[in-house]
């Protein structure tokens, strides 16, 4: 079933939506931490990379699937808690530029540790490979992982939204992301809120690690690095300061790259990063506060 336009078929669209869904999860993970700490975590991709290596190691050791996924979650969560204590906490209150450069350093550090540990050739995670097969839905072939990714992302986003809107800690997180100082005065405990945001963002990174390894079973030290750069751009384009615009931005950039990557012939799709990042610059110029920010506040002296 081919739609007679740009050889766009259902499979390409589904893959685009799946990539968008995965990027949306990464966007939420980055956005939650930014909300409470005003810190753009450049090293988020390395959390995903660590999780992916955990999966690869588990499948190499012949662990059952659930064991591998559990191991992946444990590694990513432990690493994100360590990151919070060793880097984010001492940096709290520094300027955003200093924090961005610092997480850039952490990203570089983790990537090189992985390089030292596992070598540049990487390892292969095979335990979830069965999700790469296709399902036939209404006569169209769709990768199982596309369906799984969309469902998992929807559930995760729903849970995060529930957490933010319906629980006390979520209320505290929303308050902290509006005005950290005032919310502290009103009894929000800073460390608890920050730790929780980092924890949730770590869980999301682990989920992303599981799903990305299905699409890219070869795990190398620069795994998820490019994805993080693209997601960061998407998040800033969407508008960093609120979760829903950030998620939309992440989804949009993932969907666009996934779709165009599938549709364009190779001699054009190799220039895809140029188009995507040119679009990012354009959006930033027209709407520096984000595509979906409708407020008209101007910084005042």
């Amino acid at each position, binding site marked *: 079933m081919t739609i007679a336009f740009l050889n766009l078929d259902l499979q390409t669209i589904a893959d685009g939506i799946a990539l968008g869904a995965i990027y949306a999860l990464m966007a939420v993970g980055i956005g939650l931490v930014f909300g409470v700490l005003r810190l*753009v975590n450049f090293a988020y991709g390395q959390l995903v990379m660590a999780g992916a290596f955990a999966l690869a190691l588990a499948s190499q050791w012949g662990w059952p699937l659930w064991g591998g996924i559990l191991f992946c979650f444990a590694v990513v969560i432990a690493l994100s808690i360590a990151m919070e204590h060793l*880097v984010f906490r*001492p*940096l709290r209150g*520094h*300027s*955003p*530029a*200093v924090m*961005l*450069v*610092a997480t*850039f*350093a*952490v990203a*570089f*550090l983790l990537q*090189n*540790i992985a*390089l*030292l540990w596992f070598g540049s050739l990487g390892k292969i995670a095979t335990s979830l490979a069965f999700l790469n097969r296709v399902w036939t839905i209404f006569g169209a072939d769709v990768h199982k992982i596309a369906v799984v990714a969309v469902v998992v992302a929807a559930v995760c986003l729903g849970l995060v939204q529930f957490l933010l809107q319906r629980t006390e800690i979520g209320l505290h997180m929303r308050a902290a992301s509006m005005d950290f100082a005032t919310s502290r005065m009103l009894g929000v405990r800073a460390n608890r809120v920050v730790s929780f945001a980092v924890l949730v963002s770590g869980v999301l990174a682990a989920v992303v690690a599981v799903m990305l390894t299905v699409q890219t079973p070869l795990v190398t030290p620069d795994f998820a690095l490019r994805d993080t*750069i693209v997601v*960061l*751009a998407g998040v*800033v384009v969407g508008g*960093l300061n609120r979760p829903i615009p950030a998620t939309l931005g992440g989804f949009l950039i993932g969907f666009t790259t996934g779709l165009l990557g599938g549709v364009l012939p190779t001699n054009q799709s*190799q*220039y895809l*990063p*140029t188009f995507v*990042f*040119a679009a*990012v*610059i354009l959006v*930033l*110029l027209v709407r*520096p506060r984000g595509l979906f920010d409708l407020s008209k506040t101007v910084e005042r*002296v």
Partner: protein
Amino acid sequence: MTRHLEELVAPIALIVAAALLGTLATLSTQTYFVDTLVKVSIVVALYVFIGNSGVLSFGHISFVALGAWTAGVLSVPAAEKGAIMPNLAHFLVHRHVGNLTSLVLAAAVGGVAAFVVGVPLMRLSGLAAGIATFAVLEITHNLLTYEERVGPGQNAFSSVPETTGLRQAAVAGVVCVVVAFVYARSRFGRLLRATREDAAAARAVGASVYLQRLVAFTVSGALAGLAGGLYVHLLPVQVNSVYLDLTFVTLAMLVVGGSGSLFGAVVGALAVSALDSWLAVAENGTSLFGWHVDLPAGTAEIVVGSLMAVVLILRPNGITGGRELRLRRRPA
């Protein structure tokens, strides 16, 4: 202009000292010294914009890359061009220039590119500026990787004459320092630093934040282009050697030294380079105070990364505190 001349003399003295130290080294270790001096030029270029404006840029390595491509394409001997760059555009195939001309052209291309990029981008600040300059780096890298009409694509720039020796690299480093010093002392530099300290107050006295940033961006782009030209004359540059890793290392140097001062930029570049080079040597096995040291490959990056994170956490203004070196003035 003549007060506190030690602010100019101190960085130059450091560069000359590094070059002189390099003349004592064996030929194989001398490359590390030349590489260090080229990095000094890149970091000084970064300082001109980042240090004076306080705006982060991840995009400057684009201008280094463009400088390297300019000097490289025009310097590869005509006989070798077909092998390295089979798809080179017609008008570039028979062009060939000398060493000095290629460096001047590299600086010119870097400056023009920075101006063109800066015209739209200098409106942005903060995070948006960081991401937008990152986008510039991604675009440049992507285009240079696949655009084989202007360069070697994914091949390395082999057989470019290796003219960047200690003397040339040191002279270029000094040139960069002098330009950075004169710029920082000029009306433009002072106005830009005023906008860094308080944009609203600077606007109130008539400084155009946009214009001042654009001037600094162009000047630093030209210096970065020059450094790129030097780089391609030093080693066979390939598209990935002027990308994320170089961005990281040079930013680390600036931040570790202290982005607020020229002295900090030079000290940071020299200190991190010294550590980095020593570790690189140690990865192949060396001896220190009679101990045999043989580190696994990749240690250098890990140590530099940790150092950068630690300095940022403990001394966010760098090891010089972002101040120039000043000799104490004697009481009258």
